[in-house]
């Protein structure tokens, strides 16, 4: 929005005449209260994660299902880190493969869709844009049920079994990842200064070369941001994946979910801590390379 859109008339209404105050802006006291509040909210956000990290170093010999899960831990031991079951590693690897595939495909589809939406012009563009956003309007559980029933129908009629397979989980998660990738990429494409491309063309570059050497490098942050979002959505998503998982090899997030709801495996906190630190490093790395802006801009309100 632009400042000029708020007329002086509006401002007069907003700020009815009052005696001028000496201090402008927020007082020091008010600012401190605000910062304290901010700190509390961040502590609140991180409390469950810290508790899980604490439980991961608890040396307790678990007797019943949840006996060992307590905070603060009774001591410090890394024993759970060394006894992580091979199935848990396998499920993590499975999840990483699905997420990488989803990230790559979402980025490619997002790139094409973003160029079409931002630079194309045809009647019904709003409709296409709405089609791309539709997966976010459908409740995730409905998506899960719909994909599951489609897979059943496919396997009954063609013998193609998708439930529990990498392809099956990938397609379900791709469906909800694409809108984020499109959003992230089209925002960076729309913000691109068109003069840069014009300059390249004026200086004798072919349109293809201008696209490849000027436009693409400039929208790379949006592309990486969209791919990262797709990766992390696929990796952390449970609601859809739980329906599309088979009996044997579960994606990591579903593995944790079933473990928490049925019988608790004591190595889950240790594995979760490893995964959390991994995603921390991933986000940190991406932020160092691309800057925070990219991550924030793809936060869902765009497109």
């Amino acid at each position, binding site marked *: *929005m632009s*400042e000029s*859109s*708020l007329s002086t008339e509006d*401002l007069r209404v*907003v*700020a*009815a005449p009052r005696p001028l*105050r000496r201090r402008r802006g927020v007082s020091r006291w008010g600012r401190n209260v605000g910062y304290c*509040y*901010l700190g509390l*909210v*961040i502590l*609140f956000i*991180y409390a*469950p*994660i810290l*508790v*899980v990290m604490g439980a991961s170093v608890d040396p307790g010999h678990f007797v019943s299902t*949840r006996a060992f*899960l*307590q*905070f603060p831990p009774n001591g410090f031991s890394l024993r759970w880190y060394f006894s992580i079951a091979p199935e848990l590693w396998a499920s993590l690897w499975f999840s990483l493969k699905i997420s990488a595939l989803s990230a790559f495909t979402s980025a490619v589809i997002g790139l*094409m*869709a973003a*160029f*079409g939406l931002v630079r*194309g*012009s045809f009647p019904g563009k709003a409709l*296409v844009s709405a089609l791309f956003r539709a*997966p976010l*309007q*459908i*409740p*995730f*559980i*409905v998506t899960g*049920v719909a994909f599951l*029933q*489609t897979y*059943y129908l496919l396997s009954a009629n063609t013998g193609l079994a998708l439930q529990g397979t990498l392809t099956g989980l990938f397609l379900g998660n791709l*469906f909800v990842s*694409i809108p984020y990738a*499109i959003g992230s990429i089209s925002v960076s494409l729309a913000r691109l200064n068109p003069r840069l491309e014009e300059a390249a063309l004026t200086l004798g570059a072919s349109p293809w070369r201008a696209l490849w050497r000027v436009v693409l490098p400039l929208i790379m942050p949006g592309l990486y941001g969209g791919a990262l979002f797709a990766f*992390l959505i696929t990796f952390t998503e*449970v609601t859809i994946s739980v*329906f599309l998982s088979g009996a044997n090899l579960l994606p*990591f997030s579903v593995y944790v*979910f079933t473990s*928490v709801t049925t019988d608790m495996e004591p190595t889950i906190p240790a594995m*979760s801590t490893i*995964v959390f630190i991994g995603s*921390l490093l991933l*986000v940190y790395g991406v932020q160092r390379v691309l800057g*925070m802006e990219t991550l*924030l*801009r793809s*936060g*869902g*309100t765009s497109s």
Partner: protein
Amino acid sequence: MANRWNWLLAPPVVVSLLLLGVTQFVFLEKSFFLDLGLGLSGDELTLQNYVDVLTDPLYFDSMKLTVVLAFSVVLLSLLLTYPVAYLLTRMPPRLATFLLAAIVCSTFVSVSIKILGMVIIFAADGAVSGFFRWLGVIDQSLQIIGTIPGVIFGYIHLAIGFMVMMLFNVIQTIPVRLEEAAQIHGASRWRVYWRVVVPLSLPGVLNASLIEFNLLMGAFVTAIILGGGKVLTFPVLIQRTLTLFNDYGMAAAMSAVLLVIVLVINVVSVVCVSRLKLNLGTVA
């Protein structure tokens, strides 16, 4: 010139239409057949599944609970996060970036892991219960798991990270100079918030709330774990119908009802937001 770009839309549109159209068609079709068990479905089209969903008070109460739950979670997390997002936009950029990075990282932790942490905190012999006992407020253990407030708390926790990010984007677009101008004209700090910041961010705030609402209407992980089988939201019932009773026709009909309700709420809010935008005449 422009036509060249249009063709790029073809593959994404085909993929989206396939994924969206096929799956939605299959499950909607399924909802019109009775499920006879053992993977067999009835031969004739019937509305029986829908009649069952719409007449049983169990489902009606559950839907009411789900909508009220989602609505209150959105409202509470909005109240909680709006000041945070505002502070983040008006603080030194380096610090804001660091804090935002911390919040963004937390949203990438799987729901299951966060809920696991909450289960530990809320357990009968957990930290929260122990704290209140230490204060002397209660003498037994505090029951949080399996109650509606517990589930609301869990959902708020999951919502706020995402909410801060979306609201930050919205409030960022309001220039500080507008606030300064209002203050120079004599408005008090509160008046600046209420008459400048809040109205200008309202369309964006409603948009963010709608996204959060949609996410909540389709989530069941928190309700299952923190609800302890006692908080039966509509998605929980769908999940049960599917995994416990294997009634696919019924689950499809329930999903269809949920879908229609969410879509209607979406359309109504989008219309409201566009009216609002017309009134304000501004704000993207």
